[in-house]
């Protein structure tokens, strides 16, 4: 009738929103086109076959036929969706299993809070002492949350163990004598600035995909939108350029490690 098809949406996964939205858009356009076409056909039939005059009621009846075609098209899509083979849906039912989402919210809130505090300070609403005290508290909490996010990832236990082994091996190979990377102490009245490591580690690699960025300074993995490294505090833009250069030089090594 109108070529509607619910399968692209049904089969789409959260990972492929682009394809799903393109298909949905195509389906909507097709259905809208069919509805308008039906309205036009009815209008022509009414005027030519039934001798109706081209006035408001005639146009309204054509519009009604367009609505009918749209409704039938959607009913067809519904029946078609119900006739598809079933799959397990991503439906949240168990409370308490969304700590990652809450942590991400908390992180975003804290980073926004820091930025707002700086803006309010610039606007003269806060004294230097209040600004420094409050901002230091929030920076500490932001770091805690980011660490919790890092440690509380919902990886498969086996995969997490493998990654941990690989990371340990990488650290052992690159910095045999170095102490484990620690968070620098935060001084109450200080900005979140940490002495950058002198040179990026030669094997500064990690799980590098589209959602993460590697700090060029310490090699730590950060979120894709991070501005500063959460481990060493170096600015990510500058650090990333260094990392890209280093990565280009070690592309064989990263490929081999994966």
């Amino acid at each position, binding site marked *: 009738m109108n070529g509607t098809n*619910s399968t692209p*949406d*049904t089969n*789409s996964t*959260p990972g492929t929103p682009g394809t799903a939205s393109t298909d949905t858009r195509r389906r909507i356009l097709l259905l809208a086109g069919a509805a308008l076409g039906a309205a036009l056909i009815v209008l022509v039939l*009414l005027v030519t076959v*039934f*001798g*109706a005059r081209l006035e*408001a*009621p005639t146009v*309204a*009846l054509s*519009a*009604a036929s367009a*609505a*009918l075609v*749209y*409704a*039938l098209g*959607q*009913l067809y*899509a*519904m029946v078609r*969706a*119900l006739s*598809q*083979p*079933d*799959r*397990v*849906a*991503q*439906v*949240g*039912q168990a*409370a*308490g299993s*969304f700590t990652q*989402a*809450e942590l991400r*919210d*908390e992180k*975003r*809130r804290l980073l*926004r*809070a820091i*930025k*707002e*505090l*700086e*803006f*309010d300070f*610039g606007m*003269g*609403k*806060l*004294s230097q002492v*209040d600004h420094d005290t*409050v901002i230091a508290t929030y920076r500490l909490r932001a770091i805690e949350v980011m660490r919790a996010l890092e440690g509380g990832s919902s990886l498969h236990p086996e995969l997490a163990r493998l990654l941990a082994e690989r990371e340990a091996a990488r650290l052992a190979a690159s910095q045999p004598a170095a102490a484990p990377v620690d968070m620098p102490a935060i001084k109450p009245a200080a900005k979140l600035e940490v002495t950058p490591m002198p040179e990026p580690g030669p094997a500064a690699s990690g799980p590098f995909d589209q959602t993460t960025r590697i700090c060029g300074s310490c090699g730590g993995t950060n979120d894709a939108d991070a501005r500063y490294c959460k481990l060493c505090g170096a600015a990510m833009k500058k650090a990333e350029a260094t990392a890209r250069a280093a990565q280009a030089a070690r592309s064989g090594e990263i490929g081999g490690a994966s």
Partner: protein
Amino acid sequence: MSLALLAPLAGAPPAGSLSIATLGTATILLLFILSLGTAGLGIIGAQRRSERLIEGAVQGTYASFGLAAFASSLIIYAFLSGDYSIQYVQHTSDAAMPLFYKITAFWGGLDGSLLFWVLLHTLFGSLAVRANRMRHRELIPHVVAVLATITCFFVGLLLFIKDPFSQFLLDIPSQGRGLNPLLQNFYMIIHPPSLYLGYVSLAVPYAFGMAALLTGQVDAAWQRSVRRWVLFSWMFLTFGLILGGLWAYEELGWGGYWAWDPVENAGLLPWFTATAFLHSVMIQERRGMMKAWNLLLIIVSFLLTIVGTFMTRSGVVQSVHAFGSDPVLAWTFGGFMLLIVVVSFGLLIWRLPLLRSRGELESVMSREFAFLVNNWLFLVCALFVLGATMWPTFTEWRMILAEDYPTLLGWQNPGERVVIGPPFFNQYMRPLGLALLLLTGIGPLLAWRKTSTQSLVRQFAAPLVVGAIVTGISRGLGLESPWGLACLGLCGFTFWTIVQEFYRGVALRRKQRPQGVLEALISLVLRARRRYGGYIVHLGVVLMFLGWAGNAYKLEKKVQLKPGESYTLGAYVIRHDGLHATEDWQKEMITADIAVLRNDEVKDVLHPARWWYYQLPDQPTTEVSRYMTAGEDVYVSMQEVDMTSGWTQLSLYINPLINWIWIGFGVMLAGSLVCVGTRKSEGIGEDV
């Protein structure tokens, strides 16, 4: 399909064929079954985690809109083609009505307005599901189930109680009765749909809130999806309320714009709670606090839209534009409201452990605290207006109960139905409104979390001085009303806080990067749309309060003038220059020519009139005419007229500053449009 559908286009229908009415009722029946099915699919799909059932439910939501659109287009067709075999069409239209009013008659009566409600509800449901199904897949089946249940209720009303397609069984009239002339006004084309848009769209945030409670995902995800919807609802509620005020001002001829009419109050109630939510949601976004409160506000806002619909359509309140009394409808709405209360609050209480705050209030000198007080005030306003609107109805119920159960309640004197008029509302709403205006000024001066004591003086000094100067000047000009002076002073104070915020923001931005003033101002607003869009909305609020302050200095007089006579009101002379009678195919009209003079100079000639519609000669309408300036309105309406002697009874008003209400509304609308466009900047850079 039989050709009987074309009957209105080409003569009478053949006996026993499918008519518009039958097709319409069948569509509503199908829509009812579909909504039931969609709700069921959503619930079972979520329980079984079945993608197939959930997809079916989603497609069912879209199909519901398709069927609602089909039913609506059928009724519009019936109006346009004059199918008076349908009772609703016959009651609310006639052949002589202009095309526009024939279309708007769709929502001009009770039955059609319920179908219009269903149309908008299914449209918004479809849009919301389409926009969020990939982003919040885990919430969608529950959202669909809640939306479909609401659809089911309203379609059930159409099907079992108020079918807009029900026909005359005997004696089909050949003429329509016509739409109430009062409703044949430009503002009435836009005002009801705008209020409906605001009302109905609040079902979407409610559905997301319920889905969050059902799934236990009460983090910020659900409210990020609904904040924009609430803003949208808020904009349309505001638009509808203001247009309602303009309609009353221009059509009813009593010189005012708001008389605390129950139906207008019904629109104001969810506006209060939606405004409170738009403020308190910021606290949850920034601090993780007030999660339960925000859910409560969403539930209450939705509940109030149903209460408003109940009040307008059940006849429990007496109003100039209620749809009439209907006890069956009243009980049905009562049952639905009870269901909403039990289910929503039950879920809220069940999930309370998950809704505990992450943060805590650090100082009373913080913006959070100002928002908290603002929320309390809005809720008090909503409760007060609801209570005062319903009180006459409660007293009536008490009388009925005392009559029915004299042994139980006979000891008390039931009295008569109490009437609560505008003075009572004004007495309490005036201080509440001024307190909200004060908070509008104070809020932006405070920092989130904590404002340093030293900076308080720096923040408050200039606005306080400006407020004092404005009050002083107003007093110097001879204005005496203490409420008026307080309102003007607070307008000055709040206005200056907004100016100060913009000035300091621009200065800070220019300090950080080399920019011109205009460039810095534009980039500041675009960079932090919600903050500065909100300030623009506040500017609109200040202008509206300025208009309301003018109410304290209003002049009014009822006079009888013959052509050639004059009357002096305030600084103006009103001169009667004559009368003339005209008619068109719809009505008879008597129009007066009234000259408005100031300092012996004719400023304008006004043409107030009385119109008698042929269909409803007992309900003449008053056509107001006014001379508008930024400072005041000279408003003239004709009450009585005698064409033989020329005696004309006129109501004359001088309404100072009134036009600032409409200007303020325009500014508010512009500000809220700035706020709406925040999608691309929801990162941490937002609002700085």
